[in-house]
């Protein structure tokens, strides 16, 4: 009985510790995704109007793509780029990660806010062009040393195409203005 009395508090502590270990990564990913705000306006999409389900899909997948891109460039890993990107966008992102691995640099994108407007949706619905006015906090680190820290506003021209189970970013090109 004495042993049981000692055991119970330790057990409770272990359970709490295990719960924390399990919850923290989950909270982390939620926080990472929750830190990317995206507003999508499809009123100007032409020649085809974007259907409601498609709009929701594009919004969801665009937000997810930026979350993944931030993870890939922060931790210098290729895995997050596999699903949400295709074509040229995937190529240069992978190349960036590869070069960062060699140079020891990393990018940190936080407090992302994207105001996205659909400007073209093809008649067959197999490509959509978006204009994204993206505001985020950009840090560039050389190892642990912060070499650049700035709030930026960048304009992106984006092409998205439907993949097997999601919309993917095929082209992501920054421009001075639209």
């Amino acid at each position: 009985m004495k042993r049981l009395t000692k055991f119970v508090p330790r057990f409770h502590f272990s359970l709490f510790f295990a719960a924390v270990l399990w919850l923290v990564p989950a909270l982390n990913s939620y926080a990472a995704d929750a830190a990317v705000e995206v507003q999508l306006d499809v009123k100007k999409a032409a020649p085809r109007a974007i259907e409601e389900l498609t709009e929701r899909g594009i919004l969801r997948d665009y937000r997810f793509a930026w979350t993944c891109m931030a993870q890939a460039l922060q931790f210098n890993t290729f895995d997050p780029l596999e699903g949400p990107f295709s074509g040229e966008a995937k190529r240069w992102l992978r190349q960036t990660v590869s070069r960062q691995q060699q140079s020891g640099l990393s990018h940190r994108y936080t407090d992302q806010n994207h105001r996205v407007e659909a400007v073209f949706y093809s008649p067959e619905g197999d490509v959509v062009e978006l204009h994204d006015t993206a505001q985020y906090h950009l840090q560039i680190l050389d190892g642990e040393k912060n070499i650049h820290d700035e709030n930026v506003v960048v304009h992106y021209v984006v092409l998205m195409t439907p993949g097997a189970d999601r919309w993917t970013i095929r082209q992501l090109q920054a421009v001075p203005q639209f």
Partner: protein
Amino acid sequence: MARRGRICAVMCLAAACASACRAQDLRVPDSTVAGEETSISTTGSGKATFYLAGPGVSRKNEVALGEEVRLTAQDLRDAGYYLAILCSETCRSASFYVRAGKPASLSFIVHPSRVPVAQNEAVNGVAFPFDQYRNMVLAPVNVNFQLNAKDASLFSRAVRTQNGVAWFRTASGKSAGALQVVASLDDLTTRRAVQQVASDPCNLRITGQRTKTGILVQTEPVHDCSGNVLPDGTIVTFTATGPEGRDTVDAPIKQGIARAQMDSSGATTISVASGVVMGNEIRVGAQP
């Protein structure tokens, strides 16, 4: 005297600070084209670490302040937003954009791959010009679209790109066969093929004759309303209703004609259908 000395010391300190603050600086080009070499001028003295961050590039190397830092064509092949950073005791940065070069290829997507003849707004195409490094060319350019069937031109239109895209939509031709769809921009040409196929059967007619083993039924050559023969493999359903019951055979068209052998020995009514199109009915007398 002491006061002058203090003033002097403060001024020297300020000068030293100013000098230190001006120790490194960099000037980036106003704009540059993808794949073109350029350079970034630096000021100051001593050594510094130069960083270049941008799409597809993450460069770090030691530079001598006061000299130009060369950016190679490979560094700047992807259009987008670049940051140049120079760090010695502190870091200074400057951003610039690389824009796409002149068009070197056309991505051309055409739908559908097969289209029934004589359908309005059935064929559409979307073209995106890219430069030699696959950057989107956003400056307006004229793209010519053409549709050619055999030797005839069915459609021709020049469309100016907006936001880097040009598109068209038009009707399919009247004759079955390959339709060549061409998008051209200056001396760049991209071709796609669309197969025009016969539409639904029109005037589906059958004939039948009694044989030793039953009734042999066959269609006349099956055409659509534009006169195109339906492709081989298209299913035609024959239904024979007689005293023993009903017989149905789904027979594929071969060389324009579908045939079936029905077993019925009594007086039989035979009808035909293909898809949702019904044909004529015939009556065949009983076997003598």
